[in-house]
């Protein structure tokens, strides 16, 4: 890969995922370096979201799913029986496609994750809430109305609130499942800018339909097709000289 050796944050070894008997992911093996933005692109239903959700075991919620192979984060196989899913999800945060703040106040939305980990010190929580909102570039817009319902925010603000909510728990990895697909271009630009700032602290994995977005924000890009990780390389390489024909066809718009 790169000239200097990257520190590997997440490593998957022949990871397979099944919805019932249907195999959704085929032997995915990939190494994701720390403090980088990794984008997964590919046509709908190719398994990229499934792969993303596998990394904090959100797929456990769905009935009848099973896995084979391993996803190793910080040297630990997260599908090991001894792993506590709750602790894993504190380490691996997630931002969803739909901006879904809880039906609570703006403050409570961000403080919710802190409450979960049992932090009750008011000044400490207030500090973290402010810091998280600042990190997600929302503080200036909401600082005067923290007690208003989060539902009163605009779509882009709500999505940034969701990012603030995820950041507040202080994860090491941030998974983003098409975070901008429901947003207008201005909000999208803000979120992309935010991703660039957040990568100093977090390892960010983003799934997107938008190839320009992948090209803009990511350091590494993986191309999924039919449940296979066809190609994974530096973003520049993928978008200029892809080694596989499928990748080239997809990014040049010949299919998908």
């Amino acid at each position, binding site marked *: 890969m790169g000239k200097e050796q990257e520190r590997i944050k997440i490593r998957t070894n022949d990871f397979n995922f099944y919805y019932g008997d249907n195999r959704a992911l085929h032997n995915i093996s990939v190494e994701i370096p720390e403090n980088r933005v990794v984008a997964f692109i590919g046509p709908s239903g190719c398994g990229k979201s499934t792969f993303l959700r596998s990394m904090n075991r959100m797929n456990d*919620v769905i*009935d009848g799913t099973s896995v084979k192979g391993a996803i190793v984060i910080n040297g630990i196989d997260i599908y090991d029986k001894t792993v506590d899913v709750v602790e894993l999800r504190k380490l691996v945060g997630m931002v969803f496609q*739909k901006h879904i703040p*809880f*039906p609570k106040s703006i403050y409570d939305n961000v403080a919710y*994750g802190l409450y*979960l980990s049992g932090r009750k010190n008011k000044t400490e929580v207030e500090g973290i809430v402010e810091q998280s909102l600042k990190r997600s570039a929302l503080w200036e817009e909401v600082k005067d109305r923290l007690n208003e319902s989060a539902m*009163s925010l605009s779509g882009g603000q709500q999505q940034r609130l969701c990012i603030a909510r995820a950041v507040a*728990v202080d994860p090491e990895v941030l998974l983003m499942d098409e975070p901008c697909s429901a947003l207008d271009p201005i909000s999208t630009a803000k979120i992309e800018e935010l991703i660039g700032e957040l990568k100093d602290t977090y390892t960010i994995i983003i799934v997107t339909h938008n190839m320009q977005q992948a090209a803009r924000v990511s350091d590494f890009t993986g191309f999924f097709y039919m449940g296979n990780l066809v190609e994974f390389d530096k973003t520049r390489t993928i978008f200029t000289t892809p080694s596989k024909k499928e990748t080239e066809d997809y990014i040049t718009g010949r299919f998908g």
Partner: protein
Amino acid sequence: MTPQTSGTNPFRRRKRHIGERIAEFTVRLTASISILMIFLILTFVLREAWGITAFLTETNSDKTEKGVVNEGSKAASSDSSSPDTYGETEEVSPDVPEEYNSDVQETITDSGTVNTTGGDEPESYNPDVTDYSASEENKAEPNISHEKKTLVQNLTSDTWQPVSSEPKFGLMPLILGTAKTTFIAILIGAPLGILAAIYTAFFAPRRLREVMKPVIELLAGFPSVVIGFFCLMLVADFVQITFGVEYRLNAIVGGIGLAIAIVPVIFTITEDSLMSVPKSYREASLALGATEWQTAFKVMLPAALPGVVAAVLLGVGRAFGETMIALMATGNAAVYSASMVEPVRTLAATIGAEMGEVIWGSLHYNILFMLGVLLFLVSFSINALTEFFVKGMLAKKFQGGT
């Protein structure tokens, strides 16, 4: 640019099929009839209860008579102007079987003289005479009131003895009894229903969920007389043996019976509102490192709160108006007491128990209908509260503008 006037208009309204028209008419008619029926019932109940206004200005001494003498109210009101002679007419007591009463009614209206005693009336009825003027001679009589009471005073008193020489229509024990059983029913039924709904919605395996939901909902269609019988025979024994209470049938047994009836109502609506909370809330919460419990109680339940409140309110409405279970399991004694282990009598059960034997057109009859109006008003307010308050304000607060 000129609009085409000739030729066929492609947007011309299609002529509707005759079957469609008939179907639409039938549907419209059926809907109108059901609304009309509710309106008619309300009008009927109100009209019957309206009779009470004729008694409002009377004192309780007049009432006994008026309760019987429906049409001859003039005769009765002329009586009240001459209370000294009242004792003789007072033989007409509600204890007297109906035939007697009608005879007396005729006697009074025909003769117009208050001295006339009821022709068929046995002499033995005289000692039962309740009259403030005669009361000094009958101090031993426990049920004699020594003062004139207006109807309003009577209604707000704490004794419900509609059938006695001097009927007492104190609604307080009935209202208190209804409040007690409803309270117990909600106290037991609401947590059961809500927690069962939370379990079914979030924790139960899918197989179990598919069984649990229909089974609990089946309970909603259970005949209330069966629940009442169950409480009468088994729950009453259980409560008496377990808690060693003095009265076998009491407010707690009735409350348990009503709880059985309202659990399915609360369960179904709560479960539906929990399931209608977007699944994404659950995922978002879990993704933040919340446990299933934290998610259920801190995110899902608050988000479904309007529905849960509505469920509980509907449960209150059901418990409030439930007749058969209350009739069978509460002991049906209008005891005015705060104790939970004494028998109670609810408003609905009172109507159910007494309507069949009440003298048509009497004050008692009118008051029973007034209880009906009261029940209707409370149910209506609860439903209105659910509709406007819960769906309007709470929903806005907890679910945003969506």
